[in-house]
């Protein structure tokens, strides 16, 4: 190596290290990639929150939708609730997965705060949750019309998350569906 270049070696090392560290600042170490991306939504035989009717996978697929894992014990779920309502009002189908919760508390929540969900799957023991790879609430899955999971968002959905991450994917899925 030319001696002149050697002088710059520490600087180059510093820049490379700084670049990695800077990138690390904006990475969320808690966000895990889902193992179920591009896999079908797992099958389940559970019930609906409002009227206890049986609910299975076939009842909730057929149209691209969001599947939102929520619970009344989950504080962040309360934070994202108004925005989910707003999304539902604008025509995005959202199914709820009421995760390890109590039915009465969950019904009261929907009565008091509004119900943005097409239907709510009662996952009292977290079995569907485990099949989905859920590790906390809220989590939201983007599922296409064929029932394939396309994306998972861990944490609160707000306007920024929707605009920057979910909406582009959502539009993409809708666009693919309208193709012949």
């Amino acid at each position, binding site marked *: 190596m030319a001696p002149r270049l050697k002088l710059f070696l520490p600087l180059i090392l510093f820049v490379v290290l700084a670049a990695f560290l800077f990138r690390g600042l904006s990475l969320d*170490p*808690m966000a*895990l*990639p*889902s*193992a*179920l991306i591009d896999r079908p939504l797992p099958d389940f035989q559970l019930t609906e929150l409002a009227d206890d009717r049986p609910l299975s996978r076939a009842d909730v697929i057929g149209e691209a939708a969001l599947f939102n894992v929520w619970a009344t014990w989950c504080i962040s779920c309360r934070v994202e609730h108004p925005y989910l309502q707003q999304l539902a009002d604008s025509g995005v189908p959202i199914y709820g997965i009421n995760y*390890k919760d109590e039915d009465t508390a969950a019904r009261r929540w929907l009565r008091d705060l509004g119900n943005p969900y097409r239907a709510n799957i009662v996952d009292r023991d*977290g079995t569907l*949750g*485990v*099949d*989905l*790879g*859920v*590790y*906390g609430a809220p989590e939201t899955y983007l599922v296409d019309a064929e029932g394939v999971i396309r994306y998972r968002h861990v944490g609160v959905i707000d306007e920024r998350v929707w605009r920057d991450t979910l909406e582009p994917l959502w539009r993409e899925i809708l666009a693919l569906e309208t193709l012949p």
Partner: protein
Amino acid sequence: MNPLRTTVLGLLMLLLALPATAVIESYEFSEPELEVRYRALSQELRCPKCQNQNIADSNAPISQDLRRLLHQQLEAGSSDREILEFMVARYGEFVRYRPAFNAVTAVLWLAPVLLLLGGAAGLLLLLRGRKQSPATLDSDDQARLTALLQTAEKDA
């Protein structure tokens, strides 16, 4: 020791023992061999929520669920491999402390080796660079050196 001190001391010791009972529920196993495998697998599986704990040490709800599943599957006769595959299919390779070697985890497994080799190569180059610069004197310097050595000999 008077009875009061004994009682107080006893209570204090109980306080110390609380953390030991706080974390883990205990499972009954039909065979002792299953319990050994349960211990090994719950140490190998990583809690997806808390990330730096295995499910044996973590009290997160998800760890409790995974331990329950682990117990059920062991009692149902699943092999270690089947159980790990079940977990990985849902939570990704992340859920294992020793992920399988594949395209996704290759960087993880190979990076330490590559870094070590890189470091060794760097060190080797550095050492060779040092060896390559033995003092070579041009003819003028050589003449001065001889002259100096001769004066030194004379003085001695």
